[in-house]
């Protein structure tokens, strides 16, 4: 009998989903707040001067205080980054398809690409300045140069790893190289391509900010460089926070595009 009464007691109080906290959804917000809180407390306890490490409250004050230049420079950096990134997507896709097309092109160009990728892009900025002057153009080009390599490698890898059996089945039917690329190679490399966009967009920010820091009169890189020379450390941190926000937003956008375009790849790996 006791069991039955217990059961009815449980049934008598229906669960109230409205009051349940979804900790996983809240986690990103809570952890971010936690980071700022630890930062704030740490700086206050250690008594570091704000010229070395400002507290987050001080940084947000700076964001509010300098909002107009911060906003203008953030848009400039976003513009150069996205432009460089878009060129990298077009060029990376093209070169990736070209490299993945045949084994000999792959073998010949791959070491060159690796060598090119090994060059620190900051070393190229002076050359770009000689060619194009300072400002937007070298920033766009640096963003492009730094972010196109992962796209190329991923697209080429997707093409180069077609299962030999699939290729045999199609070749035995009389398929030309172009048929195999269109029917199998390109669709197959799309998850690699969209996956590489997340890496590429973050790298593009590195490129544009490096170039702006060295050779530009606007953009967040330039703003931080001049703030630093004025010992306005809170403004430097304000620039970093704006970069982080832009980076997270663009990354989220790329992750969303990836999911939309190649959902089959996620579901198929999950089901296996």
């Amino acid at each position, binding site marked *: 009998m006791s069991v039955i009464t217990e059961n009815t007691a449980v049934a008598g109080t229906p669960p109230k989903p409205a009051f349940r906290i979804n900790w996983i959804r809240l986690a990103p917000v809570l952890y971010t707040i936690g980071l700022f809180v630890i930062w704030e407390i740490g700086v206050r306890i250690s008594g570091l001067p704000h010229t070395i490490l400002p507290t987050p409250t001080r940084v947000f004050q700076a964001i509010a205080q300098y909002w107009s230049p911060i906003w203008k420079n953030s848009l400039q950096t976003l513009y150069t980054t996205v432009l460089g990134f878009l060129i990298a997507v077009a060029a990376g896709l093209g070169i990736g398809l070209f490299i993945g097309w045949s084994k000999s092109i792959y073998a010949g160009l791959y070491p060159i690409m690796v060598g090119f990728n090994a060059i620190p892009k900051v070393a190229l900025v002076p050359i770009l300045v000689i060619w194009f002057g300072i400002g937007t153009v070298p920033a766009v080009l640096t963003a492009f140069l730094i972010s196109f390599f992962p796209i190329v490698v991923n697209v080429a890898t997707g093409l180069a790893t077609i299962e030999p059996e699939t290729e045999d089945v199609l070749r*035995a039917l009389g398929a030309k190289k172009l048929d195999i690329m269109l029917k199998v190679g390109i669709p197959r490399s799309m998850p690699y391509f969209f996956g590489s966009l997340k890496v590429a967009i973050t790298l593009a920010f590195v490129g544009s900010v490096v170039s702006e820091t060295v050779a530009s009169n606007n953009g967040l890189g330039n703003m931080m460089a001049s703030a630093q020379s004025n010992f306005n450390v809170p403004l430097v941190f304000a620039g970093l926070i704006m970069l982080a926000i832009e980076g997270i937003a663009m990354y989220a956008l790329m992750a969303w595009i990836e999911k939309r375009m190649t959902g089959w790849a996620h579901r198929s790996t999950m089901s296996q």
Partner: protein
Amino acid sequence: MPLVSISNVDMRYGGPQGTLAVSGLDMAIERGEFVAVVGPSGCGKSTLMKLVTGLHIPQAGVVTVAGDRVTKPVSIVGMAFQNPTMLPWRTTLDNILLPLEIVERHRHRLRANKKEYVAKAEALLETVGLKGFGDKFPWQLSGGMQQRANLCRALIHEPELLMLDEPFGALDAFTREELWCVIRDLHASQDVTIVLVTHDLRESVFLADTVYVMSARPGRVVAEHRVPFARPRDLSIMYEPAFNEMVQKLHGEIATARAVA
């Protein structure tokens, strides 16, 4: 005249000093015949597949298919491998229709006659017991179901010759027996010649009219057996003494072929 004839064929990979995969290979496959090829591993069974389909051209000897000497891929062939290689971004039905987008005499008619081809694919799906699964994605199907779909893909363009390279190797015993029956019924109902490369001797005796035993590398035919059992064959013949005697004899021959190597 046989549909496929292979006479005195040598195939060497990787230049003049490379591995000799098959040497002095002779085989004649009649139209409508079901042939099984068995042998120790590395005996050049997969090379045989590629020679007949025209993916490889032999250095010596002649391969003819349907009266023509093979010098390029022959499109009257359908192929299926152990790995079903379904494309995960296409539904099962679209996977099965893929060969029609390639084969010269279908690709230009495909768009205009889509309905007719889809109906054909659905009929094939029904034959292999996958009715209604056409709109599922391959990764939503089990291994056995993917292999059934793979057979449909190999048959959609009505090939005269179906080449199967260990298609049931990765399946569990019960699914494998089910698919043996599927293949048996396909062979009985369609006008198709089948070459099955396998290392399962019971499979070869159950399904084939002729079993070829190949030697270790370099591969050549060491024995050719007519399978005497009448068709249609039921799975229960595998428990008859004559069946087991034949399997045992094949087993002995392959053991000898391995020992020689």
